[in-house]
Structure formats: C-alpha cells, structure tokens
C-alpha cells in the first residue's frame, strides 16, 4: 500500500520532467531580420571607382545563436539594372549573434570600368545559419533589404579621378590668369582707360583746380 502511495507523485514528477525536457525543443525558433531602410550610396557612382556603402544592420530574432551571411541576390523584379554580386564586398561575413543580438555589417562597392550608366537595384539577403528540424527538413530564416545606387556617365573624360572642387578652382584660376594676361597686353599696347568724375560746375577745358563762381 505505501508503495502505491509513492507511485502517483513519481508519475507526476516524471511527467513534469518530460514536459520540461521537451519544452526547449518545442519552443526553439530561428529568425533573422535586416534593416527595413534600403542601403543607398550617398551621391552617384562613377565607373572604375570604389565607394564605402553604409553598413547594413542585421538581427537574430531566434532563440539560439547563429551566424549571419549576407548575399547580393536580385529577387524582386522591377526597374533598375541588376548588381553583379562581385561588385559588393562584404568583409564581415559570418558574424556570430546571440539570440536577439544585432550587428552592423560593413559594405563597400567597386564599380568596374565598363559599368553602364543608370540606376542599379538588388537585394541584400541576410541568411541565418541556425535551423530547426521538422521531419527531415531544416527550417531556416532570411531577410532582405534593397541596395540602390546610380552610376553616371563620366563628364570629366580623362580627368575623372580629379575631385569636382579642384576642377572648379582650376577653372577660376585659369579665367583670372586669362583676364590678367588680357589686361597686360592691353597695357603694353598703349591702350588706356581713363575714369573721370565730371562735376556740372566745371568745364572739361578748365584746369582741375578751377571752379566757376
């Protein structure tokens, strides 16, 4: 009889232990997030140039640690040229994130010399390494945001590598030098330009100091 008295609590304890052991597996989740705002290059890009893009923010929304890998992958159709993945360098690949932790992954853009002008659009897709098992299937999560930039035809021709303000300063200096040269030539040729101030109470033929009463 005492033996039977212990059977019920033991069974309850065993059931509770079973529930406790099963709970983590049932509640395990995987999740990935990426910034909603698109990654945009400040200004326009020129063929043959490299640029630092704003870093992209990612987050682990799952219940287990995972590594995040960002890929350049055009998924949505629409206007804009596709971005070849080789143009985007992502040095911070495989960043390890604890549950609910976030990170910024740096990005840079290298536009090759022969790039066509126009708007470029792609998705940056953050894939999480973690997965939950479901009947032989590994369930994973990923999240995407847009990467947008514009490549413009180079107006500078051979001197594309010179920053814009240097070109403007050189232009102004050139114009000033041109003006000075013109004035010098005119001066040496004997050309004179006299500026006089004529008052109504003095005739032009009068000496400078004279004044009519």
């Amino acid at each position: 009889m005492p033996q039977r008295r212990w059977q019920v609590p033991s069974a309850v304890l065993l059931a509770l232990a079973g529930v406790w052991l099963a709970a983590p597996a049932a509640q395990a989740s995987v999740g990935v997030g990426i910034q909603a705002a698109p990654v945009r290059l400040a200004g326009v890009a020129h063929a043959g140039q490299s640029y630092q893009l704003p870093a992209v923010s990612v987050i682990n929304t799952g219940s287990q640690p995972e590594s995040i890998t960002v890929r350049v992958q055009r998924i949505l159709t629409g206007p804009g040229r596709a971005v070849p993945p080789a143009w985007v360098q992502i040095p911070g690949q495989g960043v390890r994130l604890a549950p609910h932790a976030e990170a910024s992954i740096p990005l840079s853009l290298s536009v090759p010399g022969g790039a066509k002008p126009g708007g470029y659009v792609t998705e940056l897709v953050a894939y999480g390494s973690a997965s939950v098992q479901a009947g032989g299937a590994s369930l994973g999560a990923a999240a995407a945001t847009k990467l947008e930039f514009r490549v413009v035809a180079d107006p500078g021709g051979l001197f594309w590598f010179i920053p814009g303000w240097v070109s403007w300063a050189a232009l102004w200096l050139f114009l000033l030098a041109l003006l000075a040269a013109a004035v010098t030539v005119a001066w040496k040729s004997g050309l004179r330009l006299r500026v006089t101030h004529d008052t109504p109470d003095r005739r032009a033929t009068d000496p400078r100091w004279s004044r009519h009463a």
Partner: protein
Amino acid sequence: MRSLTWFAIAILAVFAVVKLGGGSGGQPAGAGHDPTLTIHFNAINTYNTVTISPSDVQCGHYHGGKFPNASTNTLGQPNGMCSVGRDVPPHVVVAPIKITYSGLSGSVFIQSGNAVPKDNGTQWHLCGPNIGPESVCHGPQGKPGPYQFSVKNFNIVGLGPTSLRPWPTCDVNFDVDGRCHAHRTQSQQEGFNIIGPYWQKNPSTTWSVTITWIAMPAK
C-alpha cells in the same frame, strides 16, 4: 603697373564679397542670435524580420509506396509521402509551423533546396510545376521521377498545397488572400508535404532538405 595690381585686388575683393554674401544669405542682417531651436534625438533602426517556430518537428502520416517498399514510418517507393502537419480532407488541417513576420509592410517568400543524403551521395532534385523545363516532375501523374522529390506547403486556411521552388518565390500560403503580403506584424501557421522519388538507389536512409522563409521589403 600699380593700376594692374589694384585691378587684380578689386577682382579678388568682388569674388570675396560675392562668396561671403552667398554663404550668409539666409541670415538676416543684424541678427544678434538665432531664434530657432534645434532638437536632436535618436530613432530606432526598423527591422524587417521573419521568425520560424515549429511546434511539431515530425514528418508523419507516411503513406505511399508499393510492397515491399511501402512503409508507415519512412518514405516508401514509388513516391512515398510524409507530412509535417496534416491537410488531408476530411481531417482538420493541422499546420504546426508558425511563421511570424515583423516590421514595415512587405512580403514573405519561400524557397527549398535539394534533398541531401547523409552520405553526401546523389541528391534528389526539387521538381514541380512552373519551375522550368529542367525541373518538371518526370514521374507518372506529374509526381517526382527518379532522384526527384517535391515539397508543397499549406496553411490552416485551406488554400491547398503549393509546390515550392528552388529560388525565392512568393509564399502564397502566408497571406489569407493567397498572396504573400505581410503587414507590420503578421503570422501564419503552415505545414508541408514531402513526396519522394519514383525510385532511387542511394542506400542512405537519412535525408535532409532546407526550407527557408525570407522577409522581403515592399516592392
């Protein structure tokens, strides 16, 4: 020569005046202090996220195959099938995988990989309608052929199983309207069926396939 110098100085002075005038054009003359107040504050970085939470991790309800290759606990041949969840009428649809989208309005896409054996032998290739000529299911009645398999997901609303593709496509089972639109916080219960190949010779008995849900930004 003195005149030339004065001329150059005058030109430089004009440039300086023009430059200074342009720089302070917005400032009223004689203003002693700025009457505006600038407030700086920080805003949160908004994320678009997708989180997968399965409450049942078993592929069950095995059926299909023919004696002696029929089974109730493994994929049989030809075209054995198992389900995570259940969508066979008249049974109540059970969809044990919770997909939660959070963030700004966007959409949820889904993709599946190939089935990979544990011994890294020949993979089963994903097949289905509308994937492309190279991924048409070659088995009888449009079922997977040799070394092919298909994955179809479904939801509790009862849209019906939809074949997954090897690249990200709109998860039509995510939204109740049969689209994949996702609002600020939206979730859906989903399940899926796996249909095995017509035949295959790989001795491996353990296979895995990766199914990925992707939070997508608005177009």
